[in-house]
């Protein structure tokens, strides 16, 4: 609607001007700006005053980067007073104004500057954790703003402060393009860095940056075990030395360490641990037969340990097998450990039954009180002779042509 009227106005003014072009030559300055000041502080009371010759009251159009509005004048002492609304007057930046009278209008610019006081320190910092070593950094961005949320003038002094271990540093930076920023580099140590800033006696709150250890370096491992027998029950604990990065910072808790164990047969067993205060612990159950282990730990792609060799001695030298109940009841045991004590429950015993070199069935059971009992059911194994072999603790006993009936 406004547009329509504007166009009609424009058109009529063009028409009129063609008739009255001679007369209007000297009446272009019907209005004259009386206010001379063009720079104001944000939030101040801004009034544009104009002389008015023919009691006309045109609107004043004004706009800044946030938006535009028109202002209705008031008449005081035969002068037009245009009060710039607070929504525009409180925002830093340029304000363009234009008088919307019929004839050639006059226009101008105002500059609004921020107050030279800091109300809030708008601060951003990130990333919140960086790596020790002096190459990684975090960026502090500070925007000192006045009470009307305007960023302060260019080259306002900001004091960036940070504390790390025993150091405490202050550094002067200046705002440029509304912001002040600083890259804070890590130092050689890991730890916690506290950052704050100050401008025109206003201080920001405290920010925290975690400086974490860099990637780990090589370390050593050791093993602890209650005895060196292969009883398949006790547990060996592997421990690393304190894992540190190249600058002697202890790696962060939870760092994952892989332990690979190569056994006598060349097979790879695997356990793992995560560090606490740089020490990773991993556990492994003892083998149940004679073994030579070589153990090496890795932090994948970054660090590794020495190779640790461990030997486990055989605990069971021999075991008895008794057949009863038409040879269908096979009892293995007593299974005795290194002091002739009964082996702890859970030792695996495997019985394989085959006929004419054809493996029929394998049963796996665990020992109970030093014995394991297998029952060969008559409805699975018909009366015949079979080859029965029993394997436990790395030992094997074979009974050829065992007759079941």
């Amino acid at each position, binding site marked *: 609607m406004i547009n329509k009227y504007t166009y009609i106005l424009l058109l009529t003014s063009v028409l009129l001007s063609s008739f009255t072009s001679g007369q209007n030559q000297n009446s272009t300055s019907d209005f004259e700006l009386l206010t001379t000041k063009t720079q104001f502080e944000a939030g101040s009371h801004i009034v544009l005053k104009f002389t008015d010759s023919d009691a006309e009251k045109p609107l004043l159009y004004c706009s800044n980067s946030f938006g535009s509005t028109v202002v209705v004048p008031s008449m005081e002492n035969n002068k037009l007073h245009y009060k710039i609304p607070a929504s525009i007057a409180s925002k830093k930046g340029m304000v363009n104004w234009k008088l919307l009278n019929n004839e050639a209008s006059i226009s101008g610019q105002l500059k609004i500057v921020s107050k030279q006081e800091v109300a809030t320190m708008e601060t951003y910092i990130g990333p919140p954790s960086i790596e020790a070593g002096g190459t990684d950094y975090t960026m502090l961005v500070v925007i000192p703003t006045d009470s009307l949320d305007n960023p302060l003038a260019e080259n306002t002094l900001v004091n960036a402060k940070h504390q790390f271990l025993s150091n405490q540093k202050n550094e002067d930076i200046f705002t440029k393009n509304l912001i002040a920023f600083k890259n804070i580099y890590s130092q050689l140590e890991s730890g916690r860095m506290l950052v704050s800033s100050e401008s025109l006696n206003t201080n920001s709150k405290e920010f925290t940056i975690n400086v974490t250890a860099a990637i780990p370096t090589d370390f050593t491992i050791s093993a602890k075990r209650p005895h060196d027998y292969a009883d398949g029950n006790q547990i060996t604990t592997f421990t690393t030395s304190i894992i540190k990065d190249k600058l002697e910072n202890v790696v*962060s808790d939870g*760092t*994952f360490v892989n332990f690979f164990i190569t056994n006598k047969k060349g097979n790879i067993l*695997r356990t793992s641990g995560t560090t606490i205060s740089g020490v990773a612990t991993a*556990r492994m159950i003892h083998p149940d037969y004679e073994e030579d282990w070589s153990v090496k730990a890795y932090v994948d792609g*970054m660090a590794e340990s020495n190779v640790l060799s461990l030997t486990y001695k055989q605990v069971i030298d021999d075991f008895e097998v008794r057949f009863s109940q038409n040879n269908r009841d096979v009892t293995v045991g007593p299974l005795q450990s290194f002091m002739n004590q009964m082996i*702890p429950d*859970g030792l695996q015993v495997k019985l394989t039954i085959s006929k004419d070199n054809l493996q029929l069935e394998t049963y796996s059971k665990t*020992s109970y009180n030093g014995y394991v009992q297998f029952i060969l059911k008559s*409805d699975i194994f018909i009366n015949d002779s079979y080859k029965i072999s029993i394997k436990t603790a790395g030992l094997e006993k074979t009974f050829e042509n065992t007759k079941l009936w």
Partner: protein
Amino acid sequence: MKESSNKYLITALLLGLAFHGTSIFFTLETTYDALIHLFFADHYSNSWFEPWNYKWYTGFTVMSYPPLVHQSIALLSLIGGLKFGLFAVALISIVLFITGVYRFSLLITSNRTVAGYAAVLAVFSSSFLETLHIFGQLPSIIGISVLMHALPEIYLWLKTGKYWYLATSLSLIAVTVTSHHVTPIFGMVFFIFPLIGMVIMDVSREQVNSMKEVTFRVFLNSFFKLFKRIISFGMLSLVIIIGCILPYWINSKNNPITQVPIPHGSRDNFLEITSSGLVFFLIPWGVLLILLPYIFYRYYSKRYIFFGLSITILTVLGTGGTTPIPRMVLGETAFNILTLDRFTLWASVMSLPILGEFAFRLVHGDLKVLIQNKFGAVYHRIIGGILAALFVFMTIFTMSLSYFRPSQPQKIKMVPIVNFLNQDDHDKWRFLTLGFGDQMAWLSAQTNALTVDGNYHSARRLPELTTRPIERLENSKFKGVAGIGSLQQFLTTPEKYNLKYIFSNDKFYDPILYFCGWQRLRQLENGIMVWERLNVPPLSSILPKDDVAKWLKVLWGTIPFLTILIAFILNVQMLLVNALKTRIKKAPVYFNFKNDYSKFSRGLLRTTHFWSILVAGIMVYGIYLFYIKNDSHRSPENAIMAYYDALDFKQFEKAHKLINPESKISIAQYMLEISVTDGLLSSYAKLDAIYTDITNHSDSTASAKVITNWITPLEKIEKTEFKRAVKQNGKWYLEPDELKNDLPPDQLYADNSTSYFNQGRRRITTEQTHHEDVLKQPVLEVLSSKLVKYNNHYAIIGEIQNIDNVPADVVLKGTLYNDANKLLATYNAKYHVKHKLMPKETSSFKINFEGVAWSKTEDSIPKTFNPDEFTPVEFEEQPTKFNLQVDGNVSGSDLYKNIVVSDIDIKNESINGNLFNSGLEEITIPQLLVTYYNEDKTMLWVDHLFIKEGVRQQRKQDFEYEILKNGELNIINSDMKNIFVNGLPNEDISNKIVPNRIENHTNSELQKINHPDFGFIKFETNTYIGNPN
């Protein structure tokens, strides 16, 4: 003639309201459908004129179901809330049904007493009970009730030609249409056509002296006489059927149902699946089954002949898949879309007048006289007693069915869930419920949050859903492999649907959630476990919708209530006159055609006797078969079946009773043994099928090879076991299994570990993201990655490491392109990655491209889905490039790493080994990730194995892994250029954090194997902890 109120009708109404009005409060909310209608009502109460609903699926239109019932509930909900509306409408439907049956019976029998009997019997008729109290199909009930009200009006219009009756009948048809769409369409065929036939018969009868003289010629003459009325009625009702729910028809045309049919019990063969037979045949028919000869005899009399044909067709169609006829008659499509139980419902409703008539004749009519004369008064009383007892038994049985076999999970308190969704902007994401049953509709009605699932399957739109025969994701475990298959696609790529929260009421789904990368958030106070997935973007504030024209919206919002209003205005006078007897009204014209109840046919009585005996015989035989099959000690097969059944349903006491008492295992010991076995098979498996093969059978012992198929959330498991059964005192028992005796060396263990806690918001604020509280995304590095093709099956494989100092949740998203850079498929890593990585931990990964990943979905989805089996995708464009997006998020949960490969034995085809749990949590499901390398230690493939048994603390568990058979393996592309971590190029990150990486660091620790295609393998372990301490 002074007319008195019909006491039977009043009794029926009072009984019906008292009986149903009380019991609906205990039954209606646990029915299948009631809560769905409630959800729709909630929609109307919030936006009456806007048909688009965002809450279910990814948006659907409520124009896919006639709105009257929903709108009525919505309107009433303004007075006392949604449930008030539901119960109020249910009460109205009860009144409508009873009065409807009365008017229909009056029309058929022209006898007030008989109609009164029918009304009383209708109150307790088992099909009505089932439809209301078990199925909760309110629109269906209201539809059929109003249709019955319309029938006398239609008769009167056709017979008298008074336009008033045309108006009343059409107004009632309109109400029927707006409450249920299927009822008037089939009602036209099965109720109104026979009624027209009856009118013509009556008109013909008037032209001659007796029924016998009504010949085809007379009939045809009358037909032509009435032709105008019939056609005008037919055309107008067609206009009404189409016009009143026009938006519905337009919507059906625009969005035709093109989905895979969802199995429904009413299409089963009732003899094979007896539970369906019970629910969809025996219960709705109930006592009517005994009276079938009478019903058919009566309806096949000349006047009712068309009703006879109609009820025959209805009866046959109601038999579902038992006979091939319904499939032939309806055609394959209609057969698979329609639920056939409604035919049985209509048949039983149609039988009610005849049931009333039979009761009348038995209680004080000619049948009583006949029986008393022939068999004596005692026999008459006994027969009456038996029939009454059967009738009451069916009523009690139907009402209590859901008590003994609950169709729904226990009632869930929704308030904690609603609160959770309202908190902290949780409703900015979609959610999913698991194991809620139809209560999910009630949850949806209460919250503003959206779900990917829904409970009205005709309205589904996502191809992931419409291409699979499942109703809801929510109960996918009951749909076997297809259900789990559909579910896991949503779980693997949740960001596609903005799905972030899952409310699980069924721990069955826990493993699949964990292995798809979800983590437990917390348990709500109602016991529901909340799972969340990291790295899912919130819903955008503007969601797409299929908009419809404004006039359709206005029609949809106004017409239903207009039909009620018009019907009310037109019928209220008659209603008041009938109810209050303010003036003497002429009896309607159909009263001229009274039946003669003076001579009951002897032959019919005999037939009924024979039929009853036959039915009784079949019942007894059925019960006998049931007993033989279910007597668990009767044979070794029964004992085995019963044992596995008991285990499946966790009825351990019952299972214990099947264990040989000679073995002297007490129930306490047995329970102890059960309680220490955990794992995929014992805690998360559902028995799917069982085959027993008795290998050796003697009088007192038997050995059986038992092959069981289990459905677990992760994979299908086939297990073969050998069981031994023994006979003790004439009963068969099973021998118990042996236990593992592994005994850890210590009683008490101490362990240290690092644990993590993320505060979330440190400051209590509703600010979207308080920037200080946002954790940095952990930095990950992709160590290697390549696109490979193995047996026609494309995958992206590789290795990833968390190179940060905090634990990370890892999301890997792979995209395939062809040479022309055309996007072919996108999918996420599912099982083949450790989703949670400790600092510096590595994991191999593989991204499979499954059905919905491919841009042309329809072509590529396999018919049957096996979570573990892969269907190669056939397509013309070959993927040649890939893009990998990796995202890390800090996560403090599921970081248990204390699992050790403690022994290994390599054979040519398989690897046997032991896992040892070195920590303090019980591992419920251990997973092995197996990476294959060639002779040059180049990574080729990643495979996995879920170990069926759990590993208890400080104990061992053996496993057997079968090495992959030879297969064609091509590396298509190993260019690592397009790999991004948290949106940044992988290479830059790598250069910055780990500039001096030791390449292929652990290659020296790869396991050598003997295999023609592979040189080395590597084992990695992952664990699911079911019950974290």
